[in-house]
């Protein structure tokens, strides 16, 4: 969909990053302790199994996500709203260096020397969504910039997931709205991995932290899985529209996935099937 040219981005560090799924973890710049903890934990668990954690190097949730990934020894990418030579906020100078040192990268669509400007950040958010397979919103108040990333992801037909919070917390209003609108709910890294279509290989112990990860994204078929929810059904026609493929082909792939037990019929459409032992508590 988005003809995002990865090589056209300015980058510092290893770019493009190592192969593997990329998950953006974004959220409020002034998170609750809960949000910060979630971002860090989630990033760590995902990075440990080989997911590249993408975030925006901003204060709060972004920083927590980068930190989490680094703590787990994983790779993380910071998509910046400034030139890659200007770290904003300056307090994250050290974090930025650690990201590069950890095998990750700082990337930006803006030329070197670009100062932080208000109008650049929405574009940065779009790039972040484009670079990722899944966008997880950890905490977002109404009108938060993280919601722009989520919206961009939807436009790009990427899966958007959201972490629930307290109903009394204004910082969770945005995420709850996303969930209400169909974003998958994230309780732990497993949920995100399931959305990546890799759950089957990972999780033997439903409560444990994922340890093995064989990202066997088996070609085109699984492009479909990324679009399917396991709760709300989607029709073959809708999928065909999203994937821009002939409906006959999508129907065939769905049937093939159905034969493998990866999807099942629900109503007039399809949902992702939860395999035995994979059902979450």
């Amino acid at each position, binding site marked *: 969909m988005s003809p995002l040219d990865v090589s056209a981005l300015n980058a510092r560090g290893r770019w493009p990053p190592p192969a593997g799924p990329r998950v953006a973890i974004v959220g409020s710049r002034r998170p609750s302790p809960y949000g910060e903890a979630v971002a860090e934990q989630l990033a760590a668990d995902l990075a440990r199994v080989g997911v590249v954690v993408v975030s925006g190097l901003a204060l709060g949730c972004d920083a927590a996500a980068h930190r989490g990934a680094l703590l787990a020894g994983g790779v993380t990418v910071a998509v910046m709203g400034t030139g890659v030579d200007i770290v904003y906020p300056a307090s994250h100078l050290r974090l930025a260096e650690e990201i590069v040192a950890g095998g990750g990268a700082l990337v930006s669509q803006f030329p070197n020397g670009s100062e932080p400007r208000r109008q650049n950040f929405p574009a940065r958010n779009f790039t972040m969504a484009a670079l990722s397979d899944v966008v997880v919103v950890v905490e977002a108040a109404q009108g938060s910039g993280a919601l722009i990333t989520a919206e961009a992801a939807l436009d790009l037909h990427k899966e958007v997931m959201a972490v629930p919070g307290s109903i009394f917390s204004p910082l969770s209003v945005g995420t709850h709205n996303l969930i209400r609108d169909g974003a998958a709910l994230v309780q732990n890294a497993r949920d995100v991995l399931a959305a990546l279509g890799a759950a089957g290989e990972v999780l033997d112990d439903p409560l444990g932290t994922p340890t093995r990860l064989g990202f066997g994204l088996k070609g085109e078929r699984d492009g479909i899985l990324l679009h399917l929810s396991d709760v*709300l*059904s989607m*029709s*073959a*026609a*809708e999928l*065909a*529209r999203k994937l821009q493929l002939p*409906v*006959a*082909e999508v*129907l*065939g*792939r*769905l*049937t*093939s996935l159905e*034969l493998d037990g990866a999807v099942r*019929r*629900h*109503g*007039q*459409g399809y949902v992702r099937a939860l395999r035995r032992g994979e059902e979450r508590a």
Partner: protein
Amino acid sequence: MLATVHSCVLVGLEARRVEVQADSANGDPKFFLVGLAATSVKEARERVRSAIKNSGLDFPRARLTVNLAPAEMRKQGSGLDFPIAVAIALAEIGKQAPARSAFLGELALDGAIRHVDGVLVAARCLQKAGFERFFVPSVDANEAALIEGLEVIPCTHLQHVVAHLLGEDWIPPQPFAKAILESSNAALEHDLVEVHGQEEARRAIEVAAAGGHHLLLTGPPGAGKTMLARCVPGILPPLDLGEAFEVAQVRSLLGDLIPGKPLDWTRPFRAPHHGVSMAGLVGGGSGLALPGEISRANHGVLFLDELAEFQAPVLQALRQPLETGRVTITRSGGSVTYPARFTLVAATNPCPCGWLGDSARTCRCTPGLVDAYQRRLSGPLLDRIDLQVGVCRVPLAELASEPRGEASATVRERVLSARTRQLDRQGCLNAQLKPKRLREVALLEPGSRRTLERWSEQKGLTARGFHRAWRVARTAADLEGTEAIGDRHVLEALGYRLHDVAA
């Protein structure tokens, strides 16, 4: 004097010859009509008497006997009025009717000759039986004139006809109306270009049209099921001559032909209401059965909306015609067979309230209710429907935008070439392939056979279901223009089996 005139009565899509013999002999002036005449024929006595008098002819003042032979065959309808009157008039005058000529028509009291149903069927059968001349009501003359090798005399009034027979006047015959295939570039009433989204269902109706497969659309109210169904005739090729003829004959029997345009090249589309009776749907009536909706839909589309609302016995009666393309109905008057080779397009809600599985609204039905509703569809009828697809509501935003789908004409091109492939290869559409022929003309690649077998095991497909999926795969390959049936074709075909549930 004795005079004999030929006519016929219709038995389904066949006409049986009837000889009308009129004899006036000495005795009290009386009028006997014998030869197993039903009430409608007995009434002919009164009409004929008045018509003859009012035509300025003499009605025999003698003991008059009219015999309808063969006497053991029951005769119905008003079409014998005219031949009876001609026989009586000729008997009175003392002349014989011209050889190899037949008469059919109803009389008004003033001697005018009125329309009867089934003239086309009669004309075809009489021509085959060796008749050369056919006197018909002038309003029906263009029907009869479709038959080559039969001189059709259009008759308006008994008086003219008698004058013609006596050589005092001459009625010019109706010229043979050679059927000319019209190119049907006429704007379609329902064009696929107007359908928003619904890519899956669009593809399904294309496959249905290409292979002659039956189709079931399941979806919530307002999803566009009816619109899609109405688009099906438009993506079918126009009728060929033989088909148009069959369609016209059924319509002729029912008096349904468009005056002045007996042959119509557009595919029939019939959409009976779900309250339809068994007789209305498959054919029936007292005495001899008349064609029902399924025969009116012959070579076209039978659309059954709200399939689950039809009475179960009515739906069960569809099974034989769905398999054989014909229906045989036996009534007191005898047994008749009508053609019924139609494409069934059925539509249903997924549950009684209609919203089961909809993304925006919640279904209010209890699980038991849903179960009962779906059970009404299941079983033998569903097993005979090759394509079963879900239809979702199109988002409002999409409805407001300009539709981007293909036009019916484009789809019809593909359908036409797929049908041509099938007819060239096997002489019939894929849906009509018998299992033996299917094995011969629809070779499955090893991988695709395995896929089909895996599915059958998982879903507990019947042998019939297995073959149906196979035929649909054949059609998918034909639409693509390839001979070998690959995995993708089988997978697509299995994707149209919404109602297969895990065994």
